């Protein structure tokens, strides 16, 4: 007679959840279109490789000025974002403030830019606000959570365990400062990517020239702009120091003062008319007829744009999330001393392995530096219009970010001397230990992936962004705004769901540089 023992391991809950995610992604794969529609993708890839190997600069002044613009928008945006985020973080314990932050960060930089462009044109103010507003929401969340996690002993030991601002500045801010500074400097890197991407909708940053060169097939020129972007991001560490920040700030505000010629007439029209649903314009709000036509208007939108956009965004987001996870797990050994160097070799061996680890991590950092929007754009040129380029772009960019962090995380694992090596080490010792952290990172990234999924619609993939972009192009701002709000609601809902999963699985909930 045999008795069966029920499985009761901590890993099983995590395994079940992963299985559900994988199955759902597989199902999504059947539904969506991932065909390669170009006749000869290899030829296009060959041309691009040739271009990448022979970068050429057709105009140095253009390159330098677009590089300077990219940096200026990024630094100005993060500066205002950090100031705004800090103020919001002071009230982060209030639900209303948290909801407000979630709302402003759930709308992507590009959508903010498209909105501001309608009233402030292609101006420096548009670029600044497009970055500053969503970044304020993100930074408020990070700062707010950092403040909450500060060891309360310092504050509790003071008379009346005060809760006013003086106490905050003496007992909370100093303790959170270092993490805030390092996270904010990471956001500068992200902002440079955002800023470059704003060029795709017309602002004078690197993305503007990248798009032109890529669309025209001038891959050598595109390569020059691309390398300039990588160089800017890769060299940040070397020259963006806190002490020099005032100099850079003065420089960027002098070079590119945030200004725009706003026509008040236009602004008033935009707010009071353009973004009001068409059937409501100039009608009394309470008449049954108006309500009827609004219902009809919404119904039509729902069937033709909102529903298909939502579904496609969710499908693409789900596949990209799972693909991101798989890539992250595959890439993490590149930044892990457990796999690349054990540091136990003498002399040259150690030097060499230290070097290979550095090289491995540089690959991850390089992949991370590539803006997903640009990756998707290049992917579309090679593979033709389908969801495949979007999946690849989102997976590579986000997988590299998580892989990099996970690799660093494995360094904290203390293995026994007799631990196995290679694949056995990976699956038996490392993967079970990091899996919780892996899911935590992935769920943090979920909201970001979904927001990016929506934005890739601007490139022609039928997610919400596609319909938003079309609405802007046909000057139907009421539809554009409604769709932006729908995408914001979707992002917020997913963020909440991810938060619920993290709590339920008792995953680490502290903010990381994601």
């Amino acid at each position, binding site marked *: 007679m045999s008795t069966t023992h029920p499985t009761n391991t901590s890993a099983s809950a995590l395994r079940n959840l992963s299985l559900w995610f994988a199955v759902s992604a597989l199902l999504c794969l059947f539904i969506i279109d991932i065909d390669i529609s170009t006749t000869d993708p290899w030829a296009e890839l060959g041309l691009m490789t040739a271009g990448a190997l022979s970068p050429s600069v057709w105009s140095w002044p253009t390159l330098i000025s677009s590089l300077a613009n990219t940096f200026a928008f990024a630094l100005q945006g993060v500066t205002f974002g950090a100031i705004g985020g800090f103020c919001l973080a002071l009230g982060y314990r209030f639900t209303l403030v948290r909801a407000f932050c979630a709302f402003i960060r759930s709308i992507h930089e590009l959508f903010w830019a498209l909105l501001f462009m309608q009233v402030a044109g292609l101006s420096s103010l548009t670029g600044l606000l497009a970055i500053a507003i969503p970044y304020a929401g993100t930074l408020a969340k990070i700062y707010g959570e950092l403040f909450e996690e500060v060891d309360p002993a310092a504050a509790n030991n*003071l008379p009346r365990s005060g809760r006013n601002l003086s106490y905050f500045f003496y007992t909370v801010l100093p303790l959170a400062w270092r993490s805030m500074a390092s996270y904010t400097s990471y956001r500068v890197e992200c902002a440079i990517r955002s800023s470059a991407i704003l060029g795709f909708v017309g602002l004078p940053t690197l993305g503007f020239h990248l798009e032109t060169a890529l669309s025209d097939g001038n891959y050598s020129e595109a390569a020059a702009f691309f390398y300039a972007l990588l160089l800017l991001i890769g060299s940040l560490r070397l020259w963006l120091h806190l002490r020099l920040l005032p100099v850079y700030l003065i420089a960027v505000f002098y070079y590119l003062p945030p200004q725009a010629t706003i026509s008040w007439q236009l602004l008033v029209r935009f707010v009071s008319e353009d973004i009001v649903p068409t059937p409501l314009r100039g009608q009394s709000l309470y008449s049954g007829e108006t309500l009827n036509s609004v219902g009809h208007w919404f119904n039509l939108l729902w069937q033709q744009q909102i529903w298909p956009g939502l579904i496609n965004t969710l499908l693409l987001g789900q596949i990209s999330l799972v693909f991101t996870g798989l890539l992250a797990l595959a890439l993490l050994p590149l930044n892990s001393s457990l796999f690349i160097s054990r540091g136990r070799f003498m002399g040259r061996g150690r030097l060499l392995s230290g070097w290979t680890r550095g090289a491995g991590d540089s690959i991850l950092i390089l992949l991370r530096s590539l803006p997903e929007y640009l990756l998707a754009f290049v992917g579309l040129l090679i593979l033709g219009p389908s969801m495949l380029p979007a999946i690849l772009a989102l997976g590579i960019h986000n997988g590299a970010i998580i892989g990099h962090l996970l690799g660093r995380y494995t360094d904290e694992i203390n293995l026994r001397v007799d631990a196995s090596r290679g694949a056995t080490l990976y699956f038996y010792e490392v993967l079970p230990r990091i899996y919780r952290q892996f899911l935590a990172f992935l769920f943090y990234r979920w909201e970001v992936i979904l927001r990016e999924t929506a934005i890739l619609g601007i490139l022609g993939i039928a997610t919400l962004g596609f319909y938003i972009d079309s609405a802007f192009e046909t000057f139907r701002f009421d539809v554009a705004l409604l769709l932006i709000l729908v995408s914001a609601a979707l992002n917020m809902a997913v963020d909440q769901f991810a938060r619920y999963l993290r709590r339920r699985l008792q995953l680490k909930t502290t903010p990381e540089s994601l």
Partner: protein
Amino acid sequence: MLSDRISHRPLFQFSDQTLHYQGRTVLDRLSLSIVAGERVALVGGSGVGKSTLLKALREQLPDQVAWCPQQPGLVPMLSTFHNIYMGALDNHSLLYNLANLIKPLPAARSAVEPIAKLLGLEQQLFSSTDKLSGGQQQRTSIGRALIQKRAIFLGDEPVANVDEYQGDALLQLICQRHQTVVLALHDIAQALSTCTRIIGLKDGAIVLDAPSNQLQASDLADLYGAS
């Protein structure tokens, strides 16, 4: 006489009260009163409820006590000066506190410096507290209590990390500056020489409560024995 009147009105009072720590009953049906002017030592083995009792005392008069907990809760990246000054945040406006955080202001310095001198911290006044020794950190914590200029001092092993000689001097200083003092102490000799009243805790109850001049060190040894 004025002092008589003060000394008969209890500052702290518990009648038949049960104190908990993290959901666990620590002191059961506690009855105790402490009047102004007393110098009380709480003695007993570890985990017997001295810290819980001190916390409960603090909650009774939060605005009148200077608090000196076992874990000093210093802000490690700020200077000794700022960590002491923190005790006086409520006496100044936000703007003043912020300016003082960026650059120590003269008035704040003249309030903190004498205290630092008394505590032997003048050399370390502008070093951050993560660079201080355990004893220096503890003295910083006492400094934070002293700057509050309150009548009552509640201290949880306030001199546990300094040597006996320094510890005696610090306890003298604390007693000079406060009318009423309640201390959790593990050093029996210090308890007897510093305080006027000894309260011994064991097994969730007060098992000894007597003036210190009627007690000898051997009377207290029982408190630490097996229960």
